[in-house]
């Protein structure tokens, strides 16, 4: 069902934890749907993501995509991080089963939510996150 890569990132997730003095925190998902991702970032003044950590409540794919997404944005500039797509996360994990694609969407959104938080705190007038993508389909997410 899961690729080796997914299982590796599930078993040995990178960047798990919190950043006590994070200047960017984003949380997406919903306990009701069984997936919450929370991403902490330490972003430098020249907008480089110096550190990133996550906490995730969710299935194997949710944990693996969190791990992979944090790996992919770590050390990148915020603008580069905003180019991260769920597809790129999936590809980096050698694919996901169809029912798990929404996890990669959540991971992309969690990154954007953290960056949005950074902008908001800084008073930068940018919107990088839309409303819930309803990626989780027929569950009663967000209601």
């Amino acid at each position, binding site marked *: 069902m899961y690729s080796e890569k997914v299982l590796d990132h599930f078993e040995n997730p990178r960047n798990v934890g919190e950043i006590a003095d994070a200047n960017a925190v984003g949380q997406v998902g919903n306990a009701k749907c069984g997936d919450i991702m929370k991403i902490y970032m330490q972003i430098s003044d020249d907008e480089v993501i110096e550190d990133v950590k996550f906490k*995730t409540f969710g299935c194997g794919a949710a944990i693996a995509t969190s791990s992979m997404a944090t790996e992919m944005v770590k050390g990148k500039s915020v603008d580069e991080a905003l180019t991260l797509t769920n597809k790129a996360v999936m590809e980096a994990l050698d694919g996901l089963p169809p029912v798990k694609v929404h996890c990669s969407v959540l991971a992309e959104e969690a990154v954007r939510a953290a960056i949005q938080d950074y902008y908001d705190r800084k008073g930068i007038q940018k919107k990088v996150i839309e409303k819930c993508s309803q990626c989780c389909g027929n569950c009663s997410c967000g209601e």
Partner: protein
Amino acid sequence: MRDCVYFDNAATTKIKSAVLEAMMPYLTEEYGNPSSIYSLGARAHSAIDEARDQVARAIGAKGREVFFTGGGTEADNWAIKGVALGNRKKGNHIISTAIEHHAVLHTLDYLEKQGFEVTYLPVDEYGRISPEDVKNAIKDTTILITVMFANNEIGVIEPIGEIGAIAKEKGIAFHTDAVQALGHMPIDVNTLNIDLMSLSAHKIHGPKGVGALYVRQGLRMENFLHGGAQEQKRRSGTENVAGIVGFGKAIQLATADIAGHTGKIAAMRDRLIDEIYSRIPYCRLNGPRDGRVCNNVNFSFQYIEGEALLLMLNMKGVAASSGSACTSGSLDPSHVLLAIGLPHEIAHGSLRLSLSDYTTQEDIDYVLEVLPPIVARLRAMSPLYEEIERGVKYV
């Protein structure tokens, strides 16, 4: 690490070697078609008759009331559609419960689309339905009551005898899905007033793909699988001879010493429950403490998700199951856990450990050893637990 510590016996079981031994001739030299007149066929026919008697004896039925099927699902489909469609003129109302297996629920969905009306009785926090509710739900148009014997997820045993008595008094056909009860408690279709009962072999150390429907003699219902004259012309298709023989042997073994089996398994189950409670905080047993099937343990662990739990257990060699949405093929968690009132987020974090004759004290020890650190590890990753921990610290 252990190789395969199997705690998913409610999903399926290992074929017992005596069962496989009974099957082998019919997978090799005794390949005759039971409908044939020559010796090879006649021997296959006798083998099926013997298996039929074994099933009948195990449930207090007559041989001619037992019909072999391709599994528990087919038995459920046949029982419910057969009675409903065969008694349409009498009425269109069916009484069932919110916690039936999908083989029952989706069959009822289908019938609702055909114009049948279904009452789904609610259950209490332990998953129990009330016979009083059954009685009150009966209408003039009620043609079938279908209530499962024991639930596959949380192991609750329903008051089948009381419901049977009500059904009998009102002259309404009573079906029970006994797939999860078989072998774990005495079942007598007559004392319990059961009119139709679904069974499946692979839950009792028999082969997959074979089951049976008990049908009380004289009960009015339609056929489901049309074709050849097999099974007293009521269930067509060349018989799965090896499977049927295996089922017969499996049911004989499973019901030979129910008290002994139950005592042994329930003791392990109880130790598992007690120890999980004592070793892991923020958890809850789903289903009742008493009145639960001897081989079922079902816990919810707050703040974590079930599929992740299963994957980590698998990495330690433990096979188990969950009512998590991720493993249910849909996005909602188990309808059973929701029906007993669990909020979604807690339902997502459930774990079912189901035991069998092959479960050992070492298996129990092992799962008790590996489970707490896994739960702890997942909680450490969980943003939900983080809040709680913080909350706890601040108190």
